[in-house]
C-alpha cells in the first residue's frame, strides 16, 4: 500500500501547485462571471439583479449572434489551416534538414517576432497591406503598371495578421515533436525501400501528430475569441464574436451578455475538442 500512497502523493504534489494557482486566478473569478451571465445586470453599484436566461436567449433570438459565431469559428479554421500549411513543413525542415549548428539559432529566430508588441505588429501590417502600401510599392517598382493588390480592410487581411501572430506556436510545437523522432527509424524505412512519401505518411506524420495537434489546439482556441486583429485589419469585415464580447465590457455595461457569449464560445470549443477526442486522446498529452 505504501507504493500506492507514494503514487498518490506524487500526483498530488505535481498537479496541486498548478491547479491551486489556476483555481485562485481563473476558476474562482470565472465562476463569478458564470453567475453574472445568468443575471439581468451585473450586481455592481446600486443595481438590483434578477436571475434570467435572457442572455443566453439573446443568442437564440438574434440571428446575427449566430452568424458572428459561425464567422469566428470559420476564422479559426482558416487561420489554423494556414498555420499548418506554412508551419508544419517549416518545422520538418528545421528538425531534419538543417545542420546542427544552425538549428538552435533558427529555432530562436522563429520565436523572436513574438517578443514585440501585438498592436505594434498589427499596425506594421496595415502599412504592408494597404493600397499604396509596401507590397504595392514593391510590385510597382518592378512592374510600373501593376494594379493595386492592397488587401487591407478585408477578410484576407485578418487571416494574414492572425496567421502571422500564431505561426510560431505551430512551428515550435511541431518542431519539438518532429525533432524527437529517431533518425535511425527513417534510415531503416529507407533501407527497406520506402519512398519519401511513404516515410512521411508512415513514420513522420504519425510520430509527430502529438505536436501537430497541440499546435492546432493552441492556434484554434485563442483565435476564435480574438478581437484586436479583426478590428484593426478587417475594416468593414472586421466584426467577430470576439469584438461583440469586447463591446459588452468596454462600450456598454452589459457584463452578463458578454459573459454569456464567452461561455457559449467556450462550449463550442469544448464541443469541437470532444468531437476530436478519440484522435486527441491517442496523440496528445495531456489527454
Amino acid at each position, binding site marked *: 500500500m505504501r507504493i500506492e500512497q507514494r503514487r498518490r502523493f506524487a500526483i498530488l504534489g505535481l498537479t496541486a501547485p*498548478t491547479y491551486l494557482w489556476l483555481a485562485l486566478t481563473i476558476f474562482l473569478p*470565472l465562476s463569478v462571471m458564470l453567475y453574472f451571465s445568468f443575471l439581468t445586470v451585473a450586481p455592481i453599484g446600486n443595481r438590483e439583479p434578477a436571475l434570467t436566461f435572457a442572455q443566453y436567449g439573446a443568442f437564440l433570438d438574434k440571428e446575427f449572434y449566430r452568424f458572428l459565431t459561425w464567422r469566428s469559428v470559420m476564422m479559426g479554421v482558416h487561420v489554423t489551416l494556414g498555420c499548418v500549411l506554412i508551419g508544419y513543413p517549416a518545422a520538418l525542415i528545421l528538425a531534419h534538414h538543417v545542420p*546542427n549548428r544552425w538549428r*538552435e*539559432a533558427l529555432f530562436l529566430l522563429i520565436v523572436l517576432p*513574438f517578443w514585440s508588441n501585438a498592436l505594434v505588429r498589427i499596425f506594421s501590417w496595415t502599412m504592408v497591406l494597404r493600397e499604396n502600401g509596401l507590397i504595392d510599392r514593391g510590385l510597382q517598382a518592378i512592374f510600373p503598371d501593376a494594379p493595386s493588390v492592397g488587401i487591407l480592410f478585408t477578410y484576407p487581411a485578418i487571416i494574414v495578421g492572425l496567421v502571422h501572430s500564431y505561426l510560431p506556436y505551430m512551428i515550435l510545437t511541431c*518542431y519539438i515533436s518532429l525533432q524527437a523522432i529517431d533518425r535511425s527509424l527513417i534510415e531503416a524505412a529507407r533501407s527497406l525501400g520506402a519512398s519519401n512519401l511513404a516515410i512521411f505518411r508512415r513514420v513522420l506524420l504519425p510520430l509527430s501528430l502529438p505536436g501537430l495537434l*497541440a499546435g492546432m489546439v*493552441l492556434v484554434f482556441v485563442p483565435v476564435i475569441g480574438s478581437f484586436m486583429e479583426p478590428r484593426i485589419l478587417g475594416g468593414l469585415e472586421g466584426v467577430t464574436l*470576439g469584438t461583440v464580447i469586447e463591446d459588452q465590457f468596454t462600450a456598454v455595461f452589459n457584463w452578463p451578455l458578454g459573459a454569456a457569449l464567452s461561455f457559449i464560445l467556450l462550449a463550442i470549443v469544448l464541443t469541437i475538442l470532444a468531437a476530436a477526442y478519440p484522435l486527441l486522446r491517442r496523440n496528445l498529452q495531456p489527454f
Partner: protein
Amino acid sequence: MKGLLKSLVSGYLALVLVFLYLPIAVMMVMAFNQSPLYRLPVVWDTVWFEELAGNERLLGASLNSVVLALINAVIATALGTMAALAFARYQFRGKTLLQILLFPPITIPWLIIGTSMLILFFWTGIGRGLHAMLLGHVALSLPYVIVVVGARLKSFGVTLEEAAATLGASPWQVFWRVSAPVMGPGIVAAALFAFAVSFDQFVISYFLAPPGISTLPVEIYSAIRKGFTPEINAISTIIILVSMGLMLLFARFSRFGGER
C-alpha cells in the same frame, strides 16, 4: 537533384522567416522614420531614440515588463512541467477533467478574465499590484507550458527512462541523464512561450496594475486614444535586437535543441 532539393528546402525556410520578420522590419524602419504617422517615403532620423532616452516612464515600464516576464517564465515553466509530468506518467481518476480545465484560460477572452480577476481580487483583498499581475500572468501561461511540454513527453514515451532504470541508474540519474535532456527542447520552448505570453499581456496587467506602475503593453494600449509615438517602435527595436543577441549567444553555448 539533391542540390536542388536542398536549395528548395532552405529557400522555403527563408520565405517563412521573411513572412515572420516583415512586420518586425517595418516596425524597426519606422523607429528610424521622422514621421510619427509612419508616412512614406522614409526620412531617416534618430529623433525617436533621443526622445526615448528621456522618457523615464516608458523605460521603467519596459523594465517592469522584462522582470515580470522572466519571473513568470520561471514559475510557469516549473509548475507546468510538473503537471505535464504527472499527466504523462500516471493514470488517475479526474485526469480528463483536469485537462479540460486547461481550456478556459485560453478560450475565454482575456478581457473577461481580467475583469473577473479585478472583481475577485477586490473582494478577497488581494488587491492590485505586481503580485496580482504575476498571479494572472502565470495562470495564463500555464496551459501553454503544459501542452507544449506534454507534446514533447508524448513523442518520447517512457521507454528510455525505463531502460535506464533497468540498467541500474538511480532516480536522480534517470532524471538528469535521461528525462531532463529528453524534455529539454520542450521546456525551453515552453519557457519562451511563457515569456512571450507575459511580455505581450495587456488586459490583465491593465486591470491589475496600481496607479504609477505599468508595463510596456499597458503603456502602448493606454496611449491608444491619443496615439503612441514611434518611441514605442524604438524601444521594441532595442528589445528585439538585444534579445536576438542574447539568444544567439545562448544558442552558441548550449544544445537545447537536442543532439542529432
